[in-house]
């Protein structure tokens, strides 16, 4: 299993990287962590003529709080994001999800933006971005634009990024003053840290009385893209998120998801998992929120 021949450049700036993409005429690909791209190249499912390595582009790396958002540079390693105090404090759902992303050896190379741009429907980081309504920023070297998570994911392995564009960062909303915030993340996979057969994510803000004031809920691999469960989120507001109340709301996801059948699970099994995991993720988020001071 050897990749087809390609040329390689490692630019130091975003402008230079985008210049290579533009010159590549659709046959140039960005490589960041390479944890998804290199296997595709090894199997020759992808045969770029030019690899543009963005690992030396310093402006694409780093984690910072910016007003009511946490900005994670696209080339930030998954391992670094998982260890970041800013992520743990301000985006608890992302902190909870990252240990499910691959293994130590892949998180040390794999990047937050790389996972988003790859858009595997089972990916945990895309699920968190969809649940929280994160914003992607992309650049073609001249102009920047922002893309809502709801518009970013188009289909399996397909985003709205243009061939000459580079994902530069993802902006996760922080919930200041929303009350006690807690997150829940649940996943079924064949082996520890393997691809999710189905995953569910929830982040809740509870008031002093334990009533839900804000909710973010989404599922992955129950449809071609991660799906935010807006009707469940709306219905949770004003409720105490206990087992009975949540179970009553779960059928609201039915029209939002389109589970499919593959070697790992049938559509019916996926539908069942989506419901069970969503229930557990919301309960976990509520329990974690209740522990906050």
């Amino acid at each position, binding site marked *: 299993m050897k990749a087809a021949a390609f040329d390689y450049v490692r630019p130091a700036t975003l402008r230079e990287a985008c210049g290579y993409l533009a010159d590549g005429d659709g046959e140039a690909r960005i490589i960041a962590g390479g944890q998804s791209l290199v296997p595709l190249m090894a199997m020759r499912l992808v045969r770029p003529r030019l690899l543009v390595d963005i690992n030396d582009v310093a402006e694409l790396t780093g984690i910072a709080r910016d007003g009511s958002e946490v900005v994670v540079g696209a080339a930030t390693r998954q391992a670094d994001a998982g260890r970041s105090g800013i992520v743990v404090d301000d985006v608890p759902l992302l902190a909870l999800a990252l240990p499910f992303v691959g293994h130590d*050896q892949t998180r040390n*190379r794999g990047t937050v933006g790389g996972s988003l741009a790859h858009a595997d429907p089972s990916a945990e980081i895309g699920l968190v971005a969809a649940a929280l309504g994160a914003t992607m920023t992309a650049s073609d070297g001249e102009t920047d634009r922002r893309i809502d998570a709801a518009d970013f994911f188009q289909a399996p392995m397909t985003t709205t990024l243009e061939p000459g564009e580079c994902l530069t960062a993802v902006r996760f909303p922080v919930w200041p003053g929303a009350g006690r915030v807690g997150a829940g993340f649940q996943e079924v996979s064949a082996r520890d*840290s393997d691809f999710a057969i189905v995953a569910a994510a929830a982040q809740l803000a509870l008031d002093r009385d334990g009533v839900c004031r804000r909710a973010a809920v989404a599922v992955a691999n129950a449809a071609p893209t991660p799906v935010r469960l807006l009707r469940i989120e709306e219905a949770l507001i004003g409720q105490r998120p206990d087992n009975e109340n949540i179970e009553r709301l779960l059928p609201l996801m039915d029209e939002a998801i389109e589970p499919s059948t593959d070697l790992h699970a049938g559509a019916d099994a996926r539908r069942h998992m989506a419901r069970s995991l969503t229930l557990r993720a919301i309960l976990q988020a509520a329990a974690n929120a209740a522990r906050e001071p």
Partner: protein
Amino acid sequence: MPAKRITVIVNGEPHAASVEPRLTLVDFLRDVLDLTGTHVGCEHGVCGACSVLFDDLPIRSCLMFAVQADGHRVSTVEGLTEPGGGLSLIQDCFWETHSLQCGYCTPGMLIAAHALLRRNPDPSRQEIRKAISGNLCRCTGYGQIVEAIELAADRLNQRTPSPERDGHDR
């Protein structure tokens, strides 16, 4: 495609070479540098046999191209051996607990164990299992591998004394 000149620090020594961009890091280590301790299993990032330390962190060397390692540090299983030969403490524990049968996964397991114990010198059994979750072994059932890493942690924390070397060639 034109070859690229690279210099990679491998096990502390700089190595300069001219490589085709599509040459993976593991093929560079094995075929160019003749460091065949690192094994090639699946070649697409599933089995973990090719694990090495890249700038001190465990990675899969089949999921990087050698050209990307230019200017970086790589440590292979050969680099775990103490100066002057012999086995490292962790390797000794693998040997003592029969943690290998065919040995194919062993270099990757050793790298994972080494990285874990450096980060967390006293891991729980669950943390050990998590740390080797990216490494497949088809012989042992993992039991003895977990045992070896527990033994290594005990010795590093001096709960269990290391036996005297018996002088036999290991």
